[in-house]
């Protein structure tokens, strides 16, 4: 889910990333609506509220909504900044850093909410700020590594795309278009998992309160550990595969011309099965 970048990604990679992160976003959004009466995985509503509060002259609310919008923006900025700055790291580590940061933020919010939250307005404002920051981190990361194909918290855009794609699918000219079908599948998966995440988040919050944020952390840890497991598996397979052993020896210049020729044939065979 996290190892591959943009054009290297297959539909399967995007479906897995979309399903897990949309679930996390849906859970966070509904839990925050129940706990704080504020949406945290979308900023469209906050933008409208920002204008409304300015018009009404509610200056405290104007400042708070401005800070919330800024927190989402800063999360998105930081996520992409990490991807651009740590370009010497391997792709997995680079892509995992924003997710690790998001897990930390959500775990702190869950811990504080569970044990110390007194329901004051100031606490509510800061906790919503933290959640918006976490969602900004996540949305920016998945959008960047999927080349814009996956945006787990952008439901307005998702429904616009779905509307357009369904209209195209109903036209016989495009019905067999694989690219269109893949996009439709991906967008239905995002919508479905975002909705189910919302249901799950709401149910868990009503049952267990702020511990629901630990459940979101578990979903995100699955994303992290799934790819880590794959990395370890491939590393192990590579170490035990004679083909890769031979490649290393070739790099070190420890192969005869005959062996080099044989290996070159095997490389071509593997690349074009």
């Amino acid at each position, binding site marked *: 889910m996290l190892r591959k970048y943009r054009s290297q990604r297959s539909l399967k990679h995007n479906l897995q990333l979309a399903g897990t992160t949309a679930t996390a976003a849906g859970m966070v959004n509904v839990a925050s609506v129940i706990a704080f009466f*504020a949406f945290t995985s979308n900023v469209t509503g906050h933008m409208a509220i920002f204008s409304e509060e300015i018009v009404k002259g509610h200056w405290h609310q104007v*400042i708070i909504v401005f800070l919330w919008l800024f927190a989402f923006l800063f999360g998105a900025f930081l996520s992409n900044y990490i991807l651009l700055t740590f370009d010497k790291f391997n792709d997995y580590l680079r892509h995992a850093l924003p997710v690790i940061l998001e897990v930390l933020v959500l775990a702190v919010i869950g811990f504080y909410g569970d044990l110390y939250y007194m329901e004051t307005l100031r606490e509510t404002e800061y906790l919503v700020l933290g959640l918006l920051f976490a969602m900004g981190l996540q949305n920016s990361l998945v959008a960047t590594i999927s080349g814009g194909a996956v945006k787990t918290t952008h439901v307005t855009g998702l429904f616009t795309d779905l509307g357009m794609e369904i209209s195209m699918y109903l036209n016989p000219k495009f019905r067999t278009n694989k690219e269109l079908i893949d996009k439709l599948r991906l967008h239905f998966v995002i919508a479905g998992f975002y909705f189910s995440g919302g249901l799950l988040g709401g149910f868990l919050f009503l049952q267990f309160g702020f511990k629901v944020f630990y459940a979101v952390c578990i979903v995100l840890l699955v994303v992290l550990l799934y790819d880590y497991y794959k990395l370890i598996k491939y590393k192990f397979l590579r170490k035990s595969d004679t083909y890769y052993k031979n490649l290393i020896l070739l790099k070190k210049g420890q192969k005869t011309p005959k062996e080099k020729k044989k290996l070159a044939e095997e490389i071509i065979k593997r690349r074009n099965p």
Partner: protein
Amino acid sequence: MRSGQYTLFLLVFLFITSCVTRPEDLIIGDWNEVEWDYEKFDGFSPKDFKKIDGINLRNYSDRNLIRHEAEIWTFHPDGTIELKEDNGEVITKARWLLKGRGHILKIRYDEKTFELYDVKRLTEDEMTLHYDIGMEVRGIAKLGFERNKKEE
């Protein structure tokens, strides 16, 4: 933008922040109820509505609407609220909480009984609450208050 402009922006922002009164502070004090307006309801089935003060009021099965008979609502800084009659006699005590960006007033009577209001207007002199039935739904009752300055 240069660093000077950033600093100026930050200073203006901090100045505005320091000048603004927080809703939690603004709400403290005595408020006199001056109006109750009900949402118009066009239902005809007797199951769907009940009559209060000669006005059809819709029933929401998941919540019990408490019809306040209090004239004065006193918000204390310690998070308690007293609902009083005009002569000052306390009818009910509860806990008040502001949620969201300060736009939701929660009045909690005990662990299971609470009411939610949308704070539509909150100034030094006036407060307007809408009884809340959901995030995106208009309130079924509008309560208007004026600050009781005699008490202060």
